[in-house]
């Protein structure tokens, strides 16, 4: 059966202020999906709902047709890993220790990581180009290096007997805290991972060009509602961007980049939502 992550009619509110209203999305196996929207549109909350970190007020969440909230924690964690926007550790762990933390849901209560877990961690480090950082202290890395190591940890987490097949990687604004060079580096890494290994990636982002560069399908989220959903080439249009951000923009295919490029022109006149 084809893996499928699905949310139907999800409502969520912090206190009395609604954050997600009637949100339904489907993330099919093997894709690279994006949740695109301005700050405060509910992107991060939607990722937290999908990963079971917060419980929605209403709606259903399923993975391969099974209710996510009824799945054992460890079983869900073996299929789905989350990469937060930024990771700060309370204590000085080494890079290898951070990646091995991903093996937690694969081990019994008092079980200690074995050679197999260390091999999986080293493969994940290699896949993210961070093998040379293995013995460094995590706290001493740059922002981009930290993000790569956390992605490696997430890969180690969802690697089972069948590799990463049927697994999900959820990334919350993976480039928001990074400068331009690191943004491009992380985008290239994610694209490369998704093409080389069987894994489904879901990112939240407010960055139109990042979304255009990596995502094959998009969910546009505006004030907690789904504005549009579909393949990137179809939904990333001038009028949708105007509705989403209240910004006039030019959307065109860039020959060198080989993808859509969004050039923001001006903030739309009053009356447009934003």
């Amino acid at each position, binding site marked *: 059966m084809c893996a499928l992550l699905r949310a139907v009619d999800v409502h969520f509110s912090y206190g009395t202020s609604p954050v997600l209203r009637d949100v339904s999305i489907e993330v099919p196996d093997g894709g690279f999906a994006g949740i695109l929207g301005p700050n405060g549109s509910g992107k991060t909350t939607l990722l937290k709902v999908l990963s079971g970190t917060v419980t929605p007020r209403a709606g259903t969440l399923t993975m391969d047709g099974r209710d996510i909230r009824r799945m054992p924690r460890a079983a869900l964690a073996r299929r789905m890993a989350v990469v937060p926007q930024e990771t*700060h550790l309370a204590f000085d762990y080494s890079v290898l220790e951070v990646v091995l933390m991903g093996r937690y849901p694969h081990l019994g209560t008092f079980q200690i990581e074995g050679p197999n877990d260390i091999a999986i961690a080293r493969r994940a480090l290699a896949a993210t180009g961070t093998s040379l950082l293995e013995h460094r202290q995590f706290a001493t890395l740059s922002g981009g290096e930290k993000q790569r190591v956390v992605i490696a940890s997430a890969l180690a987490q969802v690697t089972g007997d069948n590799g990463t097949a049927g697994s999900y990687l959820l990334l919350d604004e993976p480039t928001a805290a990074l400068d331009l060079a690191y943004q491009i580096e992380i985008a290239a890494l994610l694209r490369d991972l998704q093409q080389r290994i069987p894994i489904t990636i879901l990112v939240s982002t407010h960055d139109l060009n990042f979304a255009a560069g990596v995502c094959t399908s998009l969910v546009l989220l505006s004030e907690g509602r789904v504005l549009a959903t579909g393949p990137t080439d179809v939904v990333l249009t001038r009028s949708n961007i105007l509705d989403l951000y209240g910004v006039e923009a030019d959307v065109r295919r860039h020959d060198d980049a080989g993808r859509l490029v969004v050039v923001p022109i001006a903030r739309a006149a009053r009356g447009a939502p934003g």
Partner: protein
Amino acid sequence: MRSIRQRILIVSAGFGGLAAASIVLAPLVGSTTIDLARALDRSVPFSENTDAQILFIARLPRTLAGAMVGGALASAGVVFQGLLRNPLATPFTLGVSAGAALGAMLAITFGWTFGWLGIPAIPAASFAGSISAVTIVYGLARARHGGLSTNVLLLAGVTLNAFFSALILFVQFLADFTDLYRMLRWLVGDLDVASYQPLATALPLLLVSLAVFAWLARPLNLLSLGPDAAHTHGIDVRQAQRAAFFSASLATGAAVSIAGPIGFVGIVVPHLVRLLVGADHRVVLPASVLFGAAFLVCCDVVGRTLIAPVEIPVGVITAIIGGPFFLWLLLRRG
């Protein structure tokens, strides 16, 4: 690189040797020189054998108390630091010791003499005080937040510490001079237990805490990523936080009921251990229990011998070592 199992064994053996050596040697050191051969000579009746009396009635229980209290406070410090994700937290940050102190002060002021299950009034009142403090802090944290928000826990703990300190001042203000002196001695922290009974009472409580700590070692590693990340790694965050809070509070309450609130062990030892062995709680926790035991036993030897025959309470020694260490730690982090 060594495997984690090897690291745990090597580190435990190393610090275990240190703890064992200090426990064996400490009773032999003191203001009165004792003859070990005579102390262990079974042919002399115990009532006539002063060496044996000093060794087995004064020094050995005191050394064992130091080992138990040191190990408990150091490992409770590690767990509180992991729970609060704050390397500067101590076993006393959340008000356990303030509650214990208030209980002990009340017992001294009112001259309570009743015991509870054979436990004398002051340790019993101190333990009851720490249980009330823990209950109040937990209730506050739960009421303000569904889970155990570390910020709310910290705020509740700091507030309760301040409030209990005010109550302690009030009780002290009403006390007479003799009681006031006893209160001061209690608050400084001292290992002069003079019997095995308080140790036997506290031991089961400490063993329960240590068993929970062993289970907590891996969840605490994941919690240092933050509660949300720990959750997406498959950890039951609330359960782990609750277990950490209650087990570390239990160990602290038991230790404080034996020896009063001996400061700085719970922060100096965990930091030294982390500098030596890294951050993995599966290595840090056993190392802290053993090194904490050795550290406090050695501090007490210093206190007993520095200006002998006057004995300096061990709480003064740890504070003199701990104060500057704490400052160094702050400056190093900044």
